[in-house]
């Protein structure tokens, strides 16, 4: 009866609808102009009073709401005197085993007799207590770790603690010890996922900065390799390592890289892609201006050429500066192969690049303006196949190109096991259906498919994107003015590329301006023993890479 009443009420009585609604209020103009630094606790020097330091840290780390911050107060006994101490660390970032066994245990053991000497003189026993500095005593005798730093500012301490170290504060000391007890989990070194080679190293960079720098150290094995650390991001304080060969890299280049990195004022960066966008010379140009690689061997090769490698913590891709156009058309495989094989691949890649960029545009241009270029027999075939298609060539090609881009994007986003299937099905079914429905001509399917295949032959991911964008531009130019339009596009593009610089190096180096091509950096490579010099455009400290006769085992007659 009650339920019937309720239903009746629901039918006839008005009840206001109550939707759950959450709206974030927008920033007002005054907030937008506010200095970003006002949101942070002002930096302070460490006080000699442990309580004050503790209070500051509680506020800084929001200890009431933060669940993973560890504050461990304890007492250190030195020469019979007790000192209050505080250990700060982040759960999950530090190794509990290291902290318990090798930090807390030595510190908490009584150290009363450590500094006493006993001797007897004239039958009287003397005890001499050496006056010792507490700070030095802790540093020298109570910390068995290899990396211990002393800091006086809270900002320096928080940076280290956030990256997995722990900090020790001792009452009466106005410094804090930062001890390396990192113990967080990270991915192990794996094979490269996107830059696969047949005859090369099979290890790739990982997310952990120190692991990456250690790989470089291991491969280069020279004390001239410098790895300088800095941090980027006001909030994230992401560690960034600048690596270069001190005796090879141009000092101005190294300084410029460091200058740009140190003058980035952003709240956070999360990957090397962010850094790339923040330090590149020209953001308006779609062409990549820094090489991005997951391969340590490629990074090492560039380091030894005299370039600078930038490793960002948390990113398995490092950046290499400067990057010139031919770098993006080169594969890491090239240097592992004999020059004949590598050059063959480079020719194929060059053709693929040309096709992926220009073929759709040229097709539109020829079909609209220059049909005489097509052999008569072929022209008849094309005309016959287009006979039943009601759309102009431009519509056809845009339709298919956009469809292809959709398939490509969808293939990337869907789960890996079904990704390739969708790609194949999408391409085959869509293409076949479009031809059967007389929406597009079969020739056009070949053009679009060929363009797509060729675009996959471009070794660099960013350059591939660039060409995908410019391909549409050339389609448009081919449509409005045929080969004349394409010529204009090429001319403007080459001019702009000639004007583009990457960290002071001309983007089209070593071809424009023309310099020595018989170096280790040119598109077509010479035999390895002939690559005597480093790229002119890098202006390195050691221009010579190897002597004129590098194969000293050859007889004099052979050398001639």
């Amino acid at each position, binding site marked *: 009866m009650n339920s019937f009443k309720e239903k009746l009420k629901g039918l006839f009585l008005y009840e206001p609808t109550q939707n759950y609604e959450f709206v974030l209020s927008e920033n007002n103009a005054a907030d937008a102009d506010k200095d970003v630094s006002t949101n942070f606790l002002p930096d302070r020097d460490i006080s000699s009073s442990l309580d004050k330091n503790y209070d500051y840290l509680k506020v800084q780390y929001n200890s009431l709401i933060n669940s993973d911050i560890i504050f461990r107060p304890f007492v250190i006994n030195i020469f019979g005197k007790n000192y209050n101490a505080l250990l700060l660390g982040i759960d999950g970032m530090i190794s509990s085993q290291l902290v318990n066994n090798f930090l807390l245990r030595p510190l908490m053991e009584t150290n009363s007799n450590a500094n006493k000497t006993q001797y007897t003189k004239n039958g009287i026993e003397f005890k001499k207590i050496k006056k010792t500095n507490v700070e030095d005593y802790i540093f020298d005798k109570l910390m068995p770790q290899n990396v211990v730093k002393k800091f006086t500012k809270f900002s320096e301490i928080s940076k280290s603690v956030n990256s997995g170290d722990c900090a020790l504060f001792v009452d009466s000391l106005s410094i804090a010890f930062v001890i390396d007890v990192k113990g967080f989990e990270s991915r192990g070194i794996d094979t490269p996922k996107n830059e696969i080679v047949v005859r090369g190293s099979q290890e790739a960079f990982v997310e952990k900065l120190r692991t990456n720098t250690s790989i470089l150290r291991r491969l280069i094995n020279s004390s001239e390799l410098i790895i300088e650390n800095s941090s980027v991001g006001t909030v994230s304080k992401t560690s960034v390592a600048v690596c270069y060969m001190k005796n090879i890299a141009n000092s101005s280049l190294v300084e410029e890289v460091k200058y740009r990195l140190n003058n980035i004022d952003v709240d956070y960066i999360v990957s090397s892609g962010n850094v790339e966008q923040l330090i590149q010379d020209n953001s308006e140009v779609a062409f990549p201006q820094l090489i991005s690689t997951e391969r340590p061997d490629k990074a090492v090769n560039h380091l030894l050429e005299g370039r600078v490698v930038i490793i960002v913590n948390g990113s398995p891709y490092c950046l290499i500066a400067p990057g010139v156009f031919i770098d993006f058309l080169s594969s890491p495989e090239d240097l592992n192969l004999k020059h004949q094989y590598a050059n063959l691949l480079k020719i194929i890649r060059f053709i693929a690049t040309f096709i992926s960029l220009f073929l759709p545009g040229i097709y539109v241009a*020829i079909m609209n*303006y*220059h049909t*005489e*270029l097509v*052999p*008569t027999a072929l022209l008849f075939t094309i005309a016959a196949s287009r006979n039943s298609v009601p759309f102009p060539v431009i519509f056809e090609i845009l339709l298919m190109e956009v469809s292809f881009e959709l398939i490509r994007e969808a293939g990337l986003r869907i789960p890996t096991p079904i990704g390739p299937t969708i790609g194949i099905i999408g391409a085959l079914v869509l293409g076949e259906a479009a031809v059967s429905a007389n929406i597009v001509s079969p020739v056009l399917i070949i053009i679009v498919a060929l363009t797509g295949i060729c675009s996959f032959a471009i070794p660099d991911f960013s350059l591939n994107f660039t060409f995908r964008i410019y391909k549409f531009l050339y389609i448009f130019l081919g449509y409005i*003015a*045929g*080969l*004349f*339009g*394409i*010529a*204009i596009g*090429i*001319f*403007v593009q*080459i*001019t*702009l590329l*000639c*004007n583009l610089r990457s960290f002071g190096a*001309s983007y*089209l180096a070593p*071809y*424009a*301006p*023309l*310099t020595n091509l018989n170096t280790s950096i040119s598109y077509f490579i010479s035999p390895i023993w002939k690559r005597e010099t480093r790229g002119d455009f890098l202006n390195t400290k050691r221009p010579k890479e190897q002597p004129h006769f590098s194969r000293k085992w050859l007889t004099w007659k052979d050398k001639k």
Partner: protein
Amino acid sequence: MNNIEKIGKAEVIALFIIIISNNIIINIPTIIIDFTGTGAWLNVIYLTIICLIFMLFVCKFFKPFVNFDILDVSEFLGGKILKFIIAIAYLIFFMSFSAACLRYFANNLQNIYFDTSPLIFIILLFIIPIVISCRAGLKAISGTNIILIPITILSIFTLFFAASRDFVWQRLFPIFGYGLKETFLKNTPNIFVFNVVSYIYFLKPFLKTETYYKKISIAAVIMCGIYLLLSVVTLLMSFAFITQTDETLSLYLLTRLINLGKFLQRVDALFIFVWILAILSFLSLNVFIISHIVKKIINVKASSELVLPISAILFTISLSFKDMSTLKFIVRNIYKYYNCILVFIVSFLILLLAYIKKKKKSIKANNN
């Protein structure tokens, strides 16, 4: 473009080649053929020798003037007034030649491919990349040029060799064309085809190392001679000289003779494509030099801002030619003599007198 951008030896040579190639593309060799008939190739050899001797003198006179172009030399000789006069003369020279080239090529392009499109659009499409290129500076122009030059050279040589099967050797006769006098003496003003000399006058301060100046200049004249000889001989042997080949681009007519088997029977569009790139590169260089001259006259630091108004003037002048016959008349009867007088007489005299003045000054300084 605030500071003078320096370019290397290879870039300068590439710039000269593009100038020479464009002379051929825009039908300059047919002017020689028109005036000298079948004696054109002898005329070219004769003019090359004269120009080489002339160039040796120019290099000698230019030698004491480090980082000077012809305008600086004029200023040294006759002060700002002479500099101004010479600058205006060269301004007219480059502007009219660039406008004529642009109009001539655009007109031919319209006739060949875009007969329904208005000429103004075609010329505008040329102007846009020129502006972009010139604003980027000489390094960008020379860089673009060095990338484009291999395909330009390849296109011209391919054309000459591909057309060789249609050569008729008998067309080279009579060897002296309209007569000895016409071939050698009367048509000496044909030396205007070596207009590359005018660029040599201006490119000196842009060279990275001046020591190459003489070698580069001589090389430019020799290359120009070879190119002209090749093109004149090719045209003579391909067409009877009485034929009016200058109705359209002569080289375009040559491309129509090419067929590579059954597959490629009409490849003229590919050649036109390459020549468009060459013309753009050439006109960009011209506009750059014009803006450099204007910059020197009005004494401004940056010439990049001048590119847009200069290009607008170029656009206007190129449209102002009434028709192609007017254009041809101007080139053959005014530009030809203007070029000879300015480049080969006036500039030479200025260089000579400035050289003497400089010598006298240095002798005086040594005596003191």
